């Protein structure tokens, strides 16, 4: 008897659950976002404020997975089971746009949300570094030019690269290739540093790019696939390690890590806005045009993200470490969203 009522209750509940499952699967009213772990903290703040400020929309859900991971998910197609917004810490690549179009994602609205600096940081108790791009290249390269010949990277201490650098083991923790930060790190630090060398200038373009981005594989350069906390953990375990971080992460952990200057400039809000600090990059969100009007609040979310109050000077995002857009840039971007201007 007891068993019977119990089992009939179970059956009823299961039936109810499956019935509502089929009803719910068709539509979705929550904006779904995924992508760059650099953009994630900013987008999460916007999502939360968006949910709190607009009573008629639900709070968007923000996932991570790296810029490439997010864009891959974004380009999977159109429909309720694909994401609406991809966060990216680099510009979308032409082959990704093609992949998107092949899967039916034809309207891609690019929204630049601000800028971020990339810093080289070491533990607070480690030596002070004054880096030049060429130092970073020589520390991470597979081969370096010596006396006109390319030889396997002989450097094991920073002081061997340049007498002015500390006498410390070379150990670099750089973002894995799933991160947009990695591309910026190579484009703005490694390659420019590499191209200052006379031997590299002699190479043709393709050969020089290949040479510059080849990485040593003897364990002195570690690729971190996870987020910045993983890089921080690496620094805590190994005193000599130098990690690559976003400026905002460094700002939140100033008691644990300190930054190196690059080309003599210390990274901070002012030097990045003025362009003096060389390693900065724009951050983007990519909005799926086909979902505007289907997923409630999508266009409003994009506009809210770049609104003056959210990401301008003195805003929440600025205090979270995002470097604001210039005013005319912001106006143009908001106009783009209104017109749903696609790539």
């Amino acid at each position: 008897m007891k068993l019977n009522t119990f089992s009939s209750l179970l059956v009823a509940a299961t039936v109810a659950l499956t019935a509502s499952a089929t009803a719910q699967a068709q539509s979705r009213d929550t904006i779904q976002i995924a992508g760059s772990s650099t953009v994630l903290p900013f987008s999460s703040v916007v999502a939360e404020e968006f949910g709190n400020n607009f009573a008629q929309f639900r709070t968007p859900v923000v996932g991570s997975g790296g810029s490439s991971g997010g864009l891959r998910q974004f380009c999977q197609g159109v429909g309720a089971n694909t994401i609406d917004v991809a966060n990216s810490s680099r510009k979308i690549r032409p082959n990704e746009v093609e992949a998107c179009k092949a899967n039916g994602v034809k309207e891609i609205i690019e929204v630049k949300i601000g800028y971020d600096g990339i810093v080289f940081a070491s533990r607070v108790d480690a030596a002070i570094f004054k880096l030049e791009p060429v130092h970073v290249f020589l520390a991470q390269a597979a081969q370096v030019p010596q006396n006109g010949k390319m030889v396997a990277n002989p450097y094991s201490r920073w002081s061997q690269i340049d007498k002015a650098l500390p006498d410390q083991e070379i150990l670099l923790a750089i973002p894995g290739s799933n991160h947009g930060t990695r591309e910026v790190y190579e484009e703005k630090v490694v390659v420019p540093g590499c191209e200052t060398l006379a031997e590299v200038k002699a190479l043709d373009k393709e050969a020089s790019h290949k040479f510059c981005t080849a990485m040593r594989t003897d364990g002195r350069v570690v690729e971190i696939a996870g987020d910045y906390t993983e890089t921080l953990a690496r620094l805590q375990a190994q005193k000599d390690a130098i990690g690559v971080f976003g400026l905002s992460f460094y700002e939140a952990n100033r008691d644990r890590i300190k930054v190196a200057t690059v080309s003599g400039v210390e990274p901070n809000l002012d030097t990045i806005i003025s362009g003096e600090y060389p390693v900065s990059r724009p951050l983007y969100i990519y909005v799926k045009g086909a979902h505007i009007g289907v997923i409630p609040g999508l266009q409003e979310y994009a506009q809210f993200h770049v609104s003056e109050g959210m990401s301008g000077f003195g805003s929440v995002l600025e205090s979270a470490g995002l470097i604001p857009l210039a005013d005319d840039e912001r106006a143009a971007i908001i106009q783009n969203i209104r017109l749903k201007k696609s790539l």
Partner: protein
Amino acid sequence: MTIIAENPIKAVAAPSQVQQKVIASLNRRHRKENLFRRLGLTAVLISLGLVAVLFINIFSKGLPAFWQSAITLDIYFDPQIIKIPPMPQQRDDESDNDFRQRHIEWQTEIGFVNFNRLITDSLQKILPDANKHRRDLARVVTSGERFALRDMVVADPSIIGQTRTLHLLTDANIDVWLKGNIDRSLPDGQQQLSPKMREWVDKLSADGVIQNRFSLALFMNPDSRSSLASAGLAGAFMGSFYMMLVVILLAVPMGVAAAIYLEEFAPRNKITDLVEVNINNLAAVPSIVFGLLGASVLIGWFNLPMSAPIVGGLVLSLMTLPTVIIATRSTLKAIPPSIRQAALGLGASKMQAIFHHVLPLAIPGILTGAILGVAQALGETAPLLLIGMKSFVASIPASPFEQASALPVQIYLWQGNELRNFFEARTSAAIIVLLLMMISLNGLAIWLRKKYEKRW
């Protein structure tokens, strides 16, 4: 004669070769046993020691996070600042939908009110030099508390014009500073708070205005990133709750039914052998594989929503199913055949014998297996990462179809938060909550077994 008489005496004086051998081997065996005992004891001590280290580490870090800095303020709900129309009332000729629309518009209007002003105005009364440091002033109370004030107004607009004494959470960095989680001797450049702010906070703390209070936010709020101090576990808890509900509703009845059929009804042949081997194999499949399955089949084909507890629950059900089947089968095996034979002998059908006599006796064992399976599912993280549940979700899910996080995933997310000084403790607090839930589930299983256990 002499030889016979001599021999026993010799044996006592000097043991024979055989006896020597026995004594030597006995010593060797005792030595081996002693060594094994000591090794065993060391192994137990080492594992206990490691568990102790783990628990001490987690509890010493996590317990302080259950109390959080809060500031006591007299908030005047100033009608000059809160200028809103009266709350709409439903008219007789108005449909529910229209009224809801009007209510949302009214709420949006309230959203434009600057509730931060109420807080800063109140702070100005207790901080004499506040006007010179407006930027700091706006950061004393964590930013999420302005929504708490708004919700108070929405719930009861008559509060406007009145003064209420409230305990508001302070900014996460103030909590870090007061708890000593950041080195106080660091220079200004490495501190998160400005010198002025540190001076204020120390003074307010000495005056008792800022106190360490039990953190309800940790249990009542969903996760937060814009107001770190108010980040809580409620969203993740509800996500885990819905998933466990799905597991209990799906995996347990299905597992028990499958086990009864296989054990009592199924014929013994090659096919059932194959099924049995497969169930045992299924129990050994790494959980992340189930996550991949969930992502491609449930989300990709069946169009179920991403990051939803229903998908997580289905995936975890698959994972728990073999555990339940194996536990149930072994319980059924342990019921003495005499019970079945007696029932059959008295004229019961096979079905009656099983459902009236065998199954009730097996219930404690089945429940134990099911609860342990559910507890295992509760702590599972890997498959959830693949179905989008590691997303940041800032709302509490109202149904299993709404986006949610889960407790173990929340631990993973907090572990990755940038503000390490604050979230290290918060992460350990979340671990404590999860551990307590696991321990109570396991305790329930033990209690049920003890209570209903029958011995033959």
